[in-house]
């Protein structure tokens, strides 16, 4: 009996990334732009989806709602006539590609459009797992504070578009625009940042136009 070293060199994310590529390509072939929506709990992810959809009148929209528990958001979206399916992770802190691949079997995609996948409210883990998206959208609220890029750099570094929500609260929470922007730009020099307010709908027309441009 002898000891032996076996080289493996296999990435833990390989299997996830392989499935993510399959999801990405198969949806692209159907003319679907996939948006991975990431943000902290309460950042305004669902409210942002609702406002983006309002400004996408000519687009077919699909939503996959990821939550640890409950179907509150799915009920809300379905009441607005938005085709939505719910994933409950029962504790898992992020969505992964196998979960999305499986849930897509429940979704009837009958025409091209935009698929929003609302990730679990969390600024850490979702940034690490590809789920088949074409765009990583980071939702960050003014109420969370202007220090978030410094505290959760990976999410800001990987974002393709950032929505700063609850901008009407800036004055009440002493939001420091300059400090926030400096933090974002240090990580991600060219990411577009849209200031929005889901209560009034301000700013969402521009966001939806960005999505349409990205899709075409």
């Amino acid at each position, binding site marked *: 009996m002898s000891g032996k*070293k*076996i080289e493996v060199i296999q990435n833990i994310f390989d*299997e996830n990334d392989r499935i993510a590529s399959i999801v990405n390509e198969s949806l692209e072939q159907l003319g679907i732009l996939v948006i991975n929506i990431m943000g902290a709990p309460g950042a305004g992810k669902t409210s942002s989806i609702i406002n983006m959809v309002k400004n996408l009148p000519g687009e077919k929209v699909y939503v996959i709602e990821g939550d640890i528990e409950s179907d509150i958001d799915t009920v809300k979206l379905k009441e607005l006539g938005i085709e939505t399916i719910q994933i409950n992770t029962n504790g898992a802190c992020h969505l992964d590609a196998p979960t999305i691949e499986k849930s897509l079997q429940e979704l009837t995609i009958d025409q091209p459009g935009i698929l929003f996948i609302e990730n679990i409210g969390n600024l850490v883990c979702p940034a690490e797992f590809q789920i088949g998206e074409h765009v990583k959208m980071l939702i960050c609220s003014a109420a969370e504070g202007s220090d978030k890029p410094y505290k959760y750099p990976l999410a800001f570094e990987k974002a393709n578009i950032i929505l700063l929500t609850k901008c009407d609260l800036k004055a009440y929470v002493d939001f420091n625009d300059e400090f926030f922007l400096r933090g974002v730009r240090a990580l991600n020099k060219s990411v577009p940042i849209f200031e929005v307010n889901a209560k009034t709908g301000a700013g969402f027309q521009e966001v939806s136009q960005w999505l349409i441009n990205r899709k075409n």
Partner: protein
Amino acid sequence: MHEMSLMSEVFEIINQTVETNNIRQVKKVNLQVGRLANVAPDSLSFIFGILAQGTKCQGACLMVEEMPVTANCLTCDQEFHGEGFPLICPACGSRETYITGGTEFRVASLEVDEEVKSNN
């Protein structure tokens, strides 16, 4: 905290390796974890011990090698080591960089005892 699901993936890789090689006992598992991988080595060791019970990894040692952050400058093409975010090119000061290393999380190798071949 998703070290449990990540460690399950590690075991998938180990089990495949155990199946395709003639392994009696795994003595050491060498992992490489990037500094930006957001994985806590202490949690990995704890979970490894739990998942190893009753498998060919029981009693094995888990070694976690921390991998440095490396990046490439998009402005001047300089390769450099970074300490973390924000990544700034030491040669030209540009912040337009992309990460080339430091986010990896992989099984590098296994140190094992092989099955004794019966020649009878």
